[in-house]
């Protein structure tokens, strides 16, 4: 579904990604782990189409399309979704209006009829209930005055409503207490499907206790330095990122 080859990218001429190779197939859950500054969030944002990055080499194919050539809204309509690490506040625009606008934009692209107000509200209520979200968040402005946990859950709510093919969750676990983490994990697990891929970008292993990945990648200094199964995350938890970096340095030296 997603094929990243030798991706190099820079911000203001500072190279952040230095040759990423990543293959994600439909039905898989991948975790990308790594220390702060390793390039995890850059990769996530770049895949969603954020401006300000210069891609200096490499390709990104998504469902046989050149992802990097597509505008952010085109990527979203083609099924790419990014749960933001820092969700943006949109004053004056209610959460309900925002979600309805987004959903109808995507349904239109998929050739589906727009949902009427009643059906839409019902859909939202069902999904919010699953995530343990208060309905009073609907008439409120998007993310404005939301707690950290509410913002993160709101991201997962958007994912649940928009039903993407490729969902990238950037540090969605940060700022969540254990109960909220479980609800969010249940929400994500509920979306695992044969025709959907999920990429979890995370610093900590904690989330992976609840969402067990098929593949774990370790990102360091702009490269994926190690990949493995779910057990790799546990090993990282015990031995720290220093272990992988040291091992990698040794390998490079040899």
């Amino acid at each position, binding site marked *: 579904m997603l094929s990243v080859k030798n991706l190099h990218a820079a911000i203001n001429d500072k190279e952040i990604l230095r040759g990423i190779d990543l293959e994600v197939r439909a039905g898989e859950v991948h975790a990308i782990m790594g220390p702060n500054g390793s390039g995890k969030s850059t990769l996530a944002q770049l895949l969603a189409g954020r401006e300000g990055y210069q891609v200096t080499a490499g390709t990104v194919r998504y469902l046989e399309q050149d992802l990097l050539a597509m505008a952010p809204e085109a990527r979203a309509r083609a099924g790419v979704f990014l749960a933001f690490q820092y969700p943006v506040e949109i004053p*004056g625009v209610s959460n309900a209006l925002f979600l309805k606008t987004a959903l109808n934009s995507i349904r239109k692209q998929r050739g589906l009829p727009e949902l009427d107000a009643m059906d839409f509200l019902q859909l939202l209520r069902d999904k919010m209930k699953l995530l343990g979200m208060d309905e009073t968040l609907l008439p409120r402005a998007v993310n404005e005055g939301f707690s950290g946990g509410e913002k993160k859950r709101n991201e997962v709510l958007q994912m649940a409503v928009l039903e993407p093919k490729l969902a990238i969750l950037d540090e969605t676990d940060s700022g969540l207490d254990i109960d909220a983490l479980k609800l969010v994990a249940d929400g994500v697990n509920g979306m695992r499907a044969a025709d959907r891929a999920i990429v979890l970008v995370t610093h900590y292993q904690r989330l992976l206790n609840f969402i067990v990945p098929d593949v774990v990648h370790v990102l360091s200094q702009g490269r994926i330095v190690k990949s493995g199964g779910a057990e790799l995350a546990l090993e990282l938890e015990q031995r720290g990122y220093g272990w992988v970096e040291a091992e990698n340095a040794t390998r490079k030296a040899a």
Partner: protein
Amino acid sequence: MNVQIESWDNMALARVPQCLAGRAVPWLSRARQLAFERFAAHGLPTRREEEWKYTDVGAIGKRASLAPDNIPPDPSFEARLFAWTLAQENVHLMVFVNGHYSSELSAPGELPPGARLDSLADLLDGTADLPETLFDEQHEHTIFAALNNALATDGAVLNLAAGAVLEKPLYLLFVASGHGSAIYPRNILIAGEGARATVIEHYFGMLDAHNFTNALTQISLAAHADLQHCKLLQEGKDAFHVAGIHAEQAAGSRFVSHSFALGGRLARNDIGARLGGPDSQCSLDGLYLLEGKQHVDHHTRIDHLAPSGTSREYYRGILDGESHGVFSGKVVVHPHAVKTDAHQSNRNLLLSQKAEVDTKPQLEIFADDVKCTHGATVGKLDDDSLFYLCSRGIDAALARSLLIYGFANDIIGRVEVASMRERIEHLVLDRLPQGEQIKELL
């Protein structure tokens, strides 16, 4: 020191009050004459005056006439239709055509006990005793108000006795009809102790009417009175509009003012509140949404004269094309006004390179133990917000309109009357490129 070369004739203008309402009332004739003399001596303001630094009203001086109509023209079909629509709403409706009350189009309905609603012209020509200070120099916050004192034709006079409550809003619709008329509305809103009302002033001009409106609204709130005032400026694209709204507040009273400036070529609103009694509150909000060569200037002034007053002021501007917005907000905390709590903010969104805004917040504090803050910003649409919306599949043009709508909606949402809120929301959406699409989603 008449600095402008006015093409109209001061001599002729001086005789106009002889044709206006109240011409048989000696004190009024005298007051009008003195007011006219003050205007004639000063002339139109120029940009050399600090209060008019950013707003050039020279174009008003080039008009053929500043004299109001004696007999208003027939209102257009569009105006009639709109008045009829409003009459079906749950409001007390008074319609003025070019500054003259139209009983035909109005539907004041039944008023609750203790409430009186009249047309000013009726009162001036009738036997009612009006205070002789009504047209005094003290009401002339600008020289345009002096001209209004001299030439005011008509307006609404709402008088609420102590405890009277107007549940339905009083809707004052000022229609500008015909071509090039000068229009001088004068409204007087008096709320007795504990009285409560909502008043809407809607200036509705035809697209092609290049009229000049010079309006003045005087508001007096007794102790614990509560008045919400909402002004909607929807004049034609060539219209000039100058207006004053001034409230005097006694102890524990609350004055809420909203000013929405959407239409008109050149507009200036002077809005003021004097918190004369302790524990009074005032809240001044405004939104100017400009395009083309529109110029809109809001000058506000809040005087805290007594202890423990609270004032809040939120003004926002959205400027496109080559439009020019001006915000000057003065908050004066006088020596006895301890424990004043004042907050003011003016935020502006520039949508084009050529749009311009001048913002001038001013705090003057002469008392101790006060809490006063103010802030002003001028910026563009936020890239992070645009990316967030686009990343959800919303196309860039719709995302832009949605953000502009949201920026405006924070101010529109402060209006308590739901029908008015929706009317303004729709007018704003009508101006946005993807507004129709947003309307369907709401």
